C-alpha cells in the first residue's frame, strides 16, 4: 500500500473541511509481512474519498482500521478528533454505530431474511415499541432500490 495523504471528490461545500476519520503513521503487519507502511490519511466531511490500488495491496485492511475491526501494529486512528484504536471493544461499539460499512462479499446474515438483515442494527440499538412501523420503513426502503416484495 502506498502512502496516501489525500482523497478527492465532491460534496456539500458547507460541510467540507471537518476531518471525520484520520490515520497517522498507520503500520500493519501480519507476521513478518508488512501490509500498511506508515499511512497518513484524512477523510473529510462532505468529500468522497477513494482509495485505489492493485489487488492485495491492503485497501480493505486500511478501511477495516477506520472502524477498528483490525488494530494497527503501529500508528493511530482518530474518529472526529478522538483516538479510537486504543479503545476497548465495548467502547468501540458506540463509535461503530456512526459508520455504515459494506463488506466486499456482502456479509449478509444468511440465517436471516432480507428484512431481518436490514432491521438488525435497529433491533440491537433502538427501543422500538411498534415494530410494524419499522417493517413498513424497511418495505419502503427496499422499494427504493427495486427490491419490494423480497423482504422474506
Amino acid at each position: 500500500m502506498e502512502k496516501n495523504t489525500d482523497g478527492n471528490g465532491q460534496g456539500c461545500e458547507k460541510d467540507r473541511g471537518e476531518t471525520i476519520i484520520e490515520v497517522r503513521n498507520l503500520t500493519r503487519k501480519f507476521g513478518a509481512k508488512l501490509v500498511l507502511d506508515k499511512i497518513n490519511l484524512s477523510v473529510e466531511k462532505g468529500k468522497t474519498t477513494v482509495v485505489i490500488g492493485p489487488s492485495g495491496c491492503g485497501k480493505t485492511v486500511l478501511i477495516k482500521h477506520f472502524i477498528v475491526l483490525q488494530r494497527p501494529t503501529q500508528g493511530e486512528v482518530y474518529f472526529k478528533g478522538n483516538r479510537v484504536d486504543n479503545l476497548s471493544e465495548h467502547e468501540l461499539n458506540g463509535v461503530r454505530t456512526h459508520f455504515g460499512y459494506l463488506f466486499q462479499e456482502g456479509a449478509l446474515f444468511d440465517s436471516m431474511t432480507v428484512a431481518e438483515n436490514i432491521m438488525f442494527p435497529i433491533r440491537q440499538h433502538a427501543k422500538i415499541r411498534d415494530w410494524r412501523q419499522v417493517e413498513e420503513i424497511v418495505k419502503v426502503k427496499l422499494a427504493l432500490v427495486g427490491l419490494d416484495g423480497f423482504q422474506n
Partner: protein
Amino acid sequence: MIAALGAKAIEDVVNAGRFGRFAWRSATTSARSCARKSTYPLIWTQMFIIGVNSVPVIMITGAFVGMTLAIQAYDQLAGMGLEEHLGVLINISVVKELGPVLAAVMLAGRIGGALTAELGTMNVTEQIDAVRSMGTDPIRYLVAPRLLACLLLTPVLTIFADLMGVVGGALVSFLQFDINSRAYWMFSASAVALWDVSVGIAKAFFFGGAIAVISCYKGFNCKEGAHGVGQACTDAFVASFISILALDFALAVTFKTIYHIFWPIKSIVT
C-alpha cells in the same frame, strides 16, 4: 530445533491466553445477558436447537449404555451369586459416570460441531465482523445465548440419558436374565443416593460450559475456506472430548473430597 520448540511454546501460551480471555468474556457477558430481556429470544432459539433436537439421540445413547452394562456385568456377578445386585452396578455407573460423560461426548459431536461450523462459516464470510461493525458485541449476540443454552440444557439432557440408561439396564436384566425385579430395585435404591445423581448432573453443567466455550472459540478463530471450517470442527470435537475427560477426573476428585468432608456430619445428624 530449539528455536522451533521455543516458537511453538510461545504460540501455545499465546493461544492459551487468548482462549482464557475468550472464556472469561463469554462467562461475564453471559452472566450479564441473563438480566437482558432482549437476549431471551436468542436463548430460546438455541435451547430448541441444542436441547429439544438432541433428546432422541441422547435417549438412545443412554438406553444402549444401560443395556450393554447389563450384558457385560451379569456373568461376573452371577458367578458370585450376586446377580440381584446387577442394578447397583448399572445404576451407579450410569448416573455418576457413563450417563453424564457419554451424553456430553454425544453433545460435543452433535452440538459442538454444529456451533463451530456455524460460527466458523460466519467468521470466514465476515458476518462476525459485520456484527461488530454495527456496534454489537459478537460475544453477547452469538456466544452468550449458545453458552447459556448449553449450561442449562446439558444437565437436563443428562437426566434423560440417566433415565434411559436405568430403564435399558433394567429391561435387559428382567427380560434377558430373569432377575427378580423387586430385589433388583431394592438393592439399587439402597446403593444409589441422591448425592450420586446430583454429582452426575453437576458434572454435566461443567461439560456443557466446556463444549460451548471451546466450540465457539474454535468457530471464532477458524482459518479461511471450507478446509479451515472443517479443521476447526475437528479441533473443537477433539478439544471438547479431552476437556470432558479431564473435567470428569477433576470433578470426581473434587466431589469425592466434598463428600468425605460432609459424610461424617451427615452420619451424626442422621
